């Protein structure tokens, strides 16, 4: 199916999938860092692939990111993205130290963020799997710290073969008390989108 042809009902169903997935992920994150983490209503956007690099306020914004490929009934992946300072703040919360302690990314910080993101991804896909009665497992996560535009190419690389637009389902996680501001992108490949909508009964 062409993503441009999705009906209003199908878009609503995907937004709902996003809320449920992100809701579970936010709960997991709150428990993990022992701080209240809130989430915004998931945003579902249809963007030309050329403008995807701008979603983080400029292609050169420095961000920490973790990509988890999905295995099983759905293909595609989940992408966790947080601006550099937010990534470091998450590391501090995990270590139970004041935010601002971690100053730069080393092997340990990288491992910590990868760990947090993969737990988020796992709880996100687990809730979708339950909802749609699908078998989905996240594969081994992979970390990068670099320009947002280059990171977001994972969103468009697989889609770009066949389409000029990308369907972006993203949720913002934030904490009132600290400077945590992170995003989770749910990126099923175009074939998997059909599978998911079929299972949800909105074909």
């Amino acid at each position, binding site marked *: 199916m062409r993503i441009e042809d999705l009906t209003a009902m199908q878009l609503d169903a995907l937004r709902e999938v996003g809320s449920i997935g992100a809701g579970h992920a936010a709960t997991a994150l709150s428990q993990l860092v022992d701080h209240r983490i809130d989430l915004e209503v998931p945003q579902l956007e249809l963007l030309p*692939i*050329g*403008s*995807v*690099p701008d979603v983080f306020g400029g*292609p*050169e914004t*420095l961000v920490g*990111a973790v*990509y988890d*490929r999905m295995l099983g009934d759905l293909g595609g*992946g989940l992408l966790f993205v947080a601006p550099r300072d937010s990534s470091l703040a998450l590391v501090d919360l995990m270590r139970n130290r004041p935010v601002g302690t971690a100053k730069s990314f080393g092997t340990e910080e990288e491992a910590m963020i990868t760990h947090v993101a993969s737990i988020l991804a796992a709880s996100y896909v687990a809730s979708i799997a339950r909802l749609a009665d699908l078998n989905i497992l996240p*594969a*081994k*996560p*992979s*970390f*990068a*710290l*670099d*320009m*947002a*535009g*280059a*990171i977001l*190419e*994972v969103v*468009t*690389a697989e889609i*770009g*073969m*066949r389409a*000029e637009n990308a369907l972006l389902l993203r949720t913002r996680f934030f904490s009132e008390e600290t400077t945590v501001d992170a995003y989770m992108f749910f990126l099923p490949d175009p074939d998997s989108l059909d599978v998911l909508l079929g299972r949800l009964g909105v074909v």
Partner: protein
Amino acid sequence: MHSDTSYLDNVDRHVTVGVGELATATYPEILTTQALGSCIGIALWDPSRQAGGMAHVMLPSSEDTRMVGKMDRFATHAVPALIALLEAEGSSHRRLVAKIAGGAAMFKGDSMLAGIGSRNIDEVHRQLHLAGVLLRAEDTGGDHARTIELHLDTGILVVRSYQYGIRDI
């Protein structure tokens, strides 16, 4: 050391090439494209005209050959299109000098994604060879993002990255 090529001094002269797009320009303009990951920035320079062109390609070729619409994101399409554009402006492909950057594996842990960068590099090499354009320099591969600027008076391609700072090729 890079006083004449520093980024902020000459922003007003920049012609920015977006993802999946291509453009040409003439000195004193500077062609630039940002945040190349697995994508490749192709810079073509014509010394005699102090002019050149740049493309930001995302993928080697289209999976679906019947696809219509904008095709400049594919190397198989963008390289010949950029050369044709420069020739229409008065360049000869024999005079053109190519420099390329990008083709990284941003998430090296994921083998499916890691392959895209190297396939892009191969296809760009092949397209330049087919067109008979000399590839003079490249900064490709690795696992970091790059931003490039082509200075049309000198043909210098400035490559910037968070990991390695500024490099001229």
